[in-house]
């Protein structure tokens, strides 16, 4: 899938089109997370579906390498997307939860593209600016 096909508005729909293997994760997460069967936003959908699917797969004894490569390729596309809000979803709602867990990060590293790695490095090494807490 090309980045031109994806926008901030349709990115959850495109996620399922590109990765139909995540449909079961999506339906389960939607039922558990939202009361009215509609996502409150793209950040929530991506964190509940994509980041949780990645975490679950990486914890498996025999991860589905093919699917993991496919997911991280899609994530890399989002991280390089021209639309800033799309990048924010990749950064805040997929990379942050993955990178905040050391074991997950360790296992995920080999599947990551360069921009995704760059996001994770920025997240892990970030320190509050002077004056902030």
């Amino acid at each position: 899938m090309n980045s031109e096909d994806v926008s901030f508005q349709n990115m959850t729909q495109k996620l399922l089109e590109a990765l139909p293997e995540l449909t079961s994760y999506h339906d389960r997460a939607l039922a558990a997370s939202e009361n009215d069967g509609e996502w409150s936003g793209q950040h929530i959908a991506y964190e509940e579906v994509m980041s949780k699917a990645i975490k679950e797969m990486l914890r498996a004894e025999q991860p589905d390498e093919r699917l993991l490569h496919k997911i991280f390729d899609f994530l890399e596309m989002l991280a390089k997307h021209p639309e800033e809000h799309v990048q924010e979803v990749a950064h805040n709602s997929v990379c942050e939860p993955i990178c905040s867990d050391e074991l997950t990060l360790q296992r995920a590293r080999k599947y990551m593209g360069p921009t995704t790695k760059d996001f994770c490095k920025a997240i892990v090494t970030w320190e509050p600016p002077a004056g902030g807490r």
Partner: protein
Amino acid sequence: MSLNRALEGAPGDSTLRLSLGHNYLEKKDFAGALAAANEVLRTDPDNKNAKSLKYQSTGRVAPSEGGSTTPSPTRQEATVAANTGSQVTFTDQAKHKPISVDVPGAVEDAPSPKDGKPLPLWPLAAPIGAGLIGYGIYRNQRTTWGANEPLDTPAELTDEQIAGSRKKLKFAALAGGVLLGGAAIATFGPAVVTGVEAFFLSAGPIAGGLVPAYASGVGAGAAASTLNPVTVAAGAETLGATVVLVGEAKVASDYYSYSKSRRESGSSTQQPIGQETGASSNLKKPSAKDPQLKNTIDRLFRESDQLRGGTAGAVRSESQTGLATGRKFHAIKAQENISNLQKILRRTNLDPVDRATAEALLSDLQNALKASVKP
């Protein structure tokens, strides 16, 4: 003494021997009284009067032993001749026959290193317990009066969470005090009966509070000092350990109390929590029973967060510094989670504690976003 003569004729008469023992006790001849009590208990271990006499005379030292050179008349008849630690041998001068009696508590009670005379262990429990209770009353009064001082930047907590935490802390303080008291007794030796009296004397005029708790320890120590320095150490160590533990519990309790008072005053005289600094939120990651709310909290707060306040803290930092958190800004994520929290709050079956938590999170995110759009 007529009782002695009567006993010569009936040495097994426990009533006569106990009467003699009480005579000794009245004359502060505690060793004599103890010997009489033990003699009766040897043949009648369940004799309540003998047990009572034994209790009253155990571990006490007659003034005459402290320096008087004139022994009491009774001591002329029954005098301590040797103390071997577990046994005290008396010489009954009327018969010139040594009587060996067990020193109560010599084996099971920790002996005093100074003179080998054991002291009862249980009386220390009374001043400790009473002191802790007094402190508990003090804490309650202090909370009721609202005399809480800021200790640190606390978390926003619900009333139920605050009340629950306070109860747990009080229980922990009481239980810990009792445990520490027991440990101190076991380590340093027994306390004195007079400590109990000292507590009641000191606590009487001052109704409930830290002062009686403190005075009970001081009183016990002062009373003990007239008898044995080891008991002073025991009392002081126990009191100190208890005060430290209760003090720590108090600090933690004040933390929660301050959080409550701050929130209450914030609704009338102060700005809502999280808005006052403009720089960052004070919210720490709360807990929730509701799975949807818990999920939302997990999205807003990460274990590795460098900023307080989770996503709201990130939004505040970004608006203040103009710099992203990590590589990206978080305002859109905050807005989406506001919508999600509003959905959760529309539910009628939400637990009241969870509702308060969701409202606090919603308010914090809204305040953070308001600050971020200010010119």
